[in-house]
């Protein structure tokens, strides 16, 4: 045992809350390392201790290794949980933690490097029975070379900033005429977001599903798989709705699980990781391995009945999990919707500001992973995700219905959210049938949602409420409106 007594959380939002709560349940103290902009958040309020590590821009705080390490040491932490995004897949950071006698809750720097570098990841996977996707990630980054390689791979080709993740700096060239624009745009975003213009290219499968296998390496070196998730519903390559299990055949399921375990075993992987695949028909290709906790980890937790974050902490503490692969049986179906502060009627542009009121309609099989609540402010400094809503039920159909009901009852005032968009997706025939591919949103929702006209009945209600609210204000409730109960 390493005896972790205090964990520093190098993250924000709902994942920081998730980690703090897991630590507290294990009797471990938490110290939140936050930026100046993140005082009005749930994580800030519930952490045992808080330390400000810098200004709002990520390079001054969450991405600043010195500040994060100094903060953890100043807070007396013996371990750091990086969450996802930010420094979670940065091998240099993981090494710096070790050098400063801080346990990095995650895999070894070697494993992060191995999978962080697309070439070494592919080379490793090529030594297994797992198929890989054609692509280019060479040192020659000249436009001529990139264009030549794009021809070689065959269109459509995906152009991605090498430092990227979460869909940032990622473009698709559907034919040669779009190639140069895709390169320029991806380079620009890469330079802005990660300080690097380096790109990689990959064959873009136009009709594939995104299937990913949750794996876990415990401290004894044993690799478990926790079945798969499907994340085909992506917008600008950013996942919007995820579920577990995926909509694939059971024969394919077994093959993919075996491949994922083989890859993780080959890398002697420790802790939680995800092996991502693209699936087209009965073919599947290794896409990448994410050496961290995933945003969508709750859907796996719901169907598998496990706690991935606590397991991560235990693994880092050199304690083994209680699992036996044969006993790991999925139950029912789980779906996660990412709730973004954005205007669905303006094509999903962020809607920032203060949350005037919010209501999370709890109930059986409903789980809310939230980072913000009433009075908190969503700023332009970071990702605009407010919360993740997860439901679990006996079947996929019931889970979809439960999600629709849950979203109908979820209220956020002060900011526009993507709830109307999520509801459209959940009721689309290709989603309901489970046949959706990664093209689903682009194909079916190419434009911003049409704003529905307010019906006459709705207008009557709105006007009545408006009148009622102004009566209250001006006449201190003396005048009664016969329409309202108890007012």
């Amino acid at each position, binding site marked *: 045992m390493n005896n972790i007594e205090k964990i520093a959380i190098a993250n924000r939002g709902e994942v920081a809350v998730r980690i703090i709560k897991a630590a507290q349940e294990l009797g471990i103290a938490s110290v939140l390392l936050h930026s100046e902009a993140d005082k009005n958040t749930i994580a800030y309020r519930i952490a045992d201790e808080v330390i400000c590590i810098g200004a709002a821009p990520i390079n001054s705080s969450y991405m600043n290794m010195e500040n994060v390490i100094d903060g953890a040491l100043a807070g007396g932490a013996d371990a750091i949980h990086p969450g996802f995004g930010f420094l979670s897949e940065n091998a240099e950071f993981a090494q710096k933690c070790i050098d400063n006698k801080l346990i990095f809750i995650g895999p070894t720097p070697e494993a992060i490097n191995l999978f962080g570098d697309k070439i070494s990841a592919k080379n490793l996977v090529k030594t297994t029975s797992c198929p890989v996707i054609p692509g280019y990630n060479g040192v020659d980054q000249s436009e001529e070379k990139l264009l030549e390689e794009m021809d070689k791979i065959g269109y459509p080709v995906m152009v991605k900033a090498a430092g990227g993740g979460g869909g940032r700096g990622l473009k698709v060239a559907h034919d040669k005429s779009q190639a140069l624009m895709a390169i320029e745009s991806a380079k620009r975003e890469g330079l802005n977001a990660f300080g690097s213009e380096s790109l990689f290219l990959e064959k873009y499968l136009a009709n594939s599903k995104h299937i990913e296998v949750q794996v876990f390496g415990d401290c004894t070196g044993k690799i478990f798989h926790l079945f798969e998730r499907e994340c085909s519903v992506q917008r600008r390559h950013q996942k919007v709705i995820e579920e577990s299990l995926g909509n694939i055949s059971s024969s394919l399921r077994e093959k993919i699980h075996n491949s994922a375990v083989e890859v993780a075993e080959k890398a002697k992987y420790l802790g939680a990781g995800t092996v991502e695949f693209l699936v087209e028909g009965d073919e599947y290709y290794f896409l990448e391995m994410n050496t961290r906790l995933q945003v969508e980890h709750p859907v796996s937790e719901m169907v598998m009945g496990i706690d991935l974050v606590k397991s991560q902490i235990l693994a880092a503490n050199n304690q083994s999990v209680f699992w036996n692969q044969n006993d790991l049986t999925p139950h029912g179906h789980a779906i996660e919707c990412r709730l973004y502060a954005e205007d669905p009627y303006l094509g999903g542009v*962020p809607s920032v500001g203060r949350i005037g009121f919010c209501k999370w309609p709890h109930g059986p099989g409903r789980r809310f992973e939230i980072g913000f609540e009433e009075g908190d402010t969503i700023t*332009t400094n970071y990702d605009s995700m407010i919360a993740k809503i997860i439901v679990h039920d006996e079947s996929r159909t019931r889970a979809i219905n439960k999600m629709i009901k849950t979203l109908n009852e979820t209220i956020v005032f002060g900011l526009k959210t993507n709830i109307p968009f999520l509801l459209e997706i959940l009721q689309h025939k290709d989603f309901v049938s489970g046949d959706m591919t990664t093209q689903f949103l682009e194909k079916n929702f190419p434009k911003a949602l049409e704003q529905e006209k307010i019906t006459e009945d709705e207008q009557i209600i709105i006007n009545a409420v408006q009148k009622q609210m102004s009566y209250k204000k001006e006449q201190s409730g003396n005048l009664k409106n016969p329409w309202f109960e108890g007012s």
Partner: protein
Amino acid sequence: MKNIILNKDGERIQIWAQRLGNELWLHFKGKTFVKDLSSSAKRRARGGASAGADDIIAPMPGKILSIKVREGDQLKKGDLIIVMEAMKMEYSLKAPQDCKVNKLLCSANDQVSLKQKLVDLDFGAQ
């Protein structure tokens, strides 16, 4: 925030309502509504000038990356006008309908604020 039960034609409707600045936010029957209570909204409702509602305004605070049009250009609906960046993502602002570019009110690399007018469009001069 106010929680109200309304009886309408025999149906019980639960309503959440909150006044935030010049807006009234409501939620009932699974939907959220925002009513603009500002005086300019009232003027618009009375049939006044639409205050350039269709000009290109910044839908979020961010940075202008590039401007794809020049003053005087004739545009077709959907033509790309501005590429801007916010929250590390790129967004394209396009012509809402056929129009002419009257005046550019921003330039590349500008930091713009929410609802700042970026381009003045003329929809009449076809």
